[in-house]
């Protein structure tokens, strides 16, 4: 059994809109183990990035409740200094857009050197340069000595993302949070970056939280998957179970809206309605119910909880038992589970 690296307990992140707090992340509990990729999936506005930013304590004015335990240590009570020590060292983050994540006025070498300097002051200048070059080499950049002296604008998007990853892994983090690491990249570059992340996981024994909206990336990378909707986790399962026997209506709807080889001659599934905004969200009852109006109201729980329906497979609300797509016959509405 791999060791638990990060334990998130009842995390609630709220933002203030006109003198009232609204929870963007609402009572989320998750664990991340060593040598594991936990994917967090959901559409824009579901709170997945807000969750990542809460873990890294990057929100300025948000109200954060609940516990975040890093190797058993509650980091929510850390002072700013302690957080700075942890961040970029044991826990680090790969940001979505490699263009804005790098400082345009600093050489690549200095940007990597900065993280080393802040956390591992013991390096001499020469050692630091060597370490930075070896990191560039590690993330697969050809001619690292040359790139060391370059500025971000001289590099392509894929190269920049590699630099961002080099910075994130500079201090051998134990938890790596990757927030849409390949969204801004072309397909062939994306597959190279994903291979690189996989390699890092194996070599460093790190726990990776992969935040993405791309279900293909999840199917290829993740060990476990958490699906988020409107600030809540609606389903958590092993990747094979989630794609093989998806249960929650939202998970099933998402999966059937992705175009694939089989969908060529048929229509894609469309989720009715829109993702509610933070302010307009109905917080009572099943939050997905307004998107599946053809399902009888009575099948939803009054206060939906996560149920363990098979070992390590959790689903929120009992409505999954009675869910079917509108164009499906009611009899063969459920796959897989008995």
């Amino acid at each position, binding site marked *: 059994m791999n060791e638990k690296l990060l334990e998130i307990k009842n995390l609630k992140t709220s933002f203030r809109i006109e003198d009232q707090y609204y929870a963007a992340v609402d009572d989320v509990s998750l664990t991340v183990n060593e040598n594991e990729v936990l994917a967090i999936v959901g559409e824009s506005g579901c709170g997945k990035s807000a969750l990542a930013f809460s873990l890294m304590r990057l929100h300025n004015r948000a109200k954060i409740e609940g516990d975040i335990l890093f190797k058993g240590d509650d980091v929510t009570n850390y002072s700013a200094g302690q957080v700075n020590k942890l961040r970029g060292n044991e826990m680090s983050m790969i940001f979505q857009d490699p263009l804005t994540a790098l400082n345009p006025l600093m050489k690549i070498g200095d940007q990597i050197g900065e993280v080393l300097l802040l956390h591992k002051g013991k390096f001499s200048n020469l050692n630091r340069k060597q370490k930075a070059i070896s990191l560039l080499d590690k993330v697969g950049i050809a001619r690292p000595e040359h790139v060391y002296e370059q500025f971000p604008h001289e590099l392509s998007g894929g190269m920049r993302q590699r630099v961002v990853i080099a910075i994130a892994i500079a201090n051998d983090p134990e938890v790596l949070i990757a927030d849409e690491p390949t969204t801004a990249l*072309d397909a062939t570059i994306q597959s190279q970056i994903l291979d690189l992340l996989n390699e890092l996981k194996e070599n460093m024994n790190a726990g990776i939280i992969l935040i993405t909206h791309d279900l293909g990336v999840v199917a290829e990378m993740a060990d476990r998957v958490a699906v988020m909707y409107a600030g809540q986790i609606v389903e958590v399962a092993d990747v094979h179970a989630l794609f093989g026997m998806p249960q929650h209506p939202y998970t099933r709807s998402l999966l059937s809206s992705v175009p694939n080889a089989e969908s*060529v001659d048929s229509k894609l599934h469309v989720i009715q309605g829109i993702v509610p905004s933070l302010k307009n969200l109905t917080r009572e009852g099943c939050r997905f119910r307004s998107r599946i109006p053809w399902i009888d109201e009575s099948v939803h729980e009054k206060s939906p909880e996560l149920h363990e329906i098979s070992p390590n497979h959790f689903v929120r609300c009992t409505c999954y038992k009675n869910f079917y797509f509108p164009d499906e016959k009611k009899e063969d509405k459920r796959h897989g589970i008995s």
Partner: protein
Amino acid sequence: MAFLEVEDLKVHFPVKGGIFGRTVDHIRAVDGVSFSLEKGKTYGLVGESGSGKTTTGRAIIGLNRATAGKITYNGHDITNLKKADLDVRKEIQMIFQDPYSSLNPKKRVLDIIAEPLRNYEKLSKQEEKKRVLELLELVGLSSESITKYPHQFSGGQRQRIGVARAIALKPKLIIADEPVSALDVSVQAQVLNFMEDIQEALGLTYIFIGHDLGVIRHMCDDIGIMYKGRYVEEGTVDDIFDNPQHIYTKRLVAAIPDINPENRREQIYYRQEVQKEYEQSYDDYFGDDGLAYGLKPISETHLVALPEKG
């Protein structure tokens, strides 16, 4: 006679340099592209950023000037049309990539959709409003939308407004430049379904520009793969996905993440094989200047850029 025929299209952008700002070089964004498409079909233009796919689309509609080559639409030569020939241009419209920046935030939906009508057709206010309402109904937006502003809509709804504007003049050919890449999967599904519906209802022909091969496979009948301004391969959907021949196409197809985690191992293995082949045989597929060779037919529908020696 093909509905649209593009022959040896070249779009070169000058690079200015020196103290007098003279043209010192050219960027060959599109460098000899030829294809034709049939009425009612969807043609996919695929490539990575910088491959020239968007520039090709923009040259067809006249937003970029063609340096050389010929574009024939329905028997008319429409290469670098002058203002006087706008009648033909009415029949070709464009849907843009980003529904957040392609709609003027200061204009009401009525004015956005009516703009092409005001340019081409002299309608009274009532007639104009009637037409806009019809268009809104066609794209599935309520009639109250007419007085709203773009920020009051979601991404998918905004893309529908963009579509309503594009079909206002009853075009026959629509160039859709990555119409769904800024959207979430469920909204993407909505827009794709809807584009298929109006294609059938209005008999539209699409040029679908994209980089997401899953979406391309779902939408298109024929596909052209571009690399550095040239075609590397062209064929039907089955030709490209089941029997890719050019190493670049193979890399693209191998890079599509598989939605089934059970295939993970094979997918990684396949990708490594393709990568190995790419490294070993790069010189066989690209000339000394790193560009693709000319297209050679290998079946009736399938063309591949292979070197002269074969």
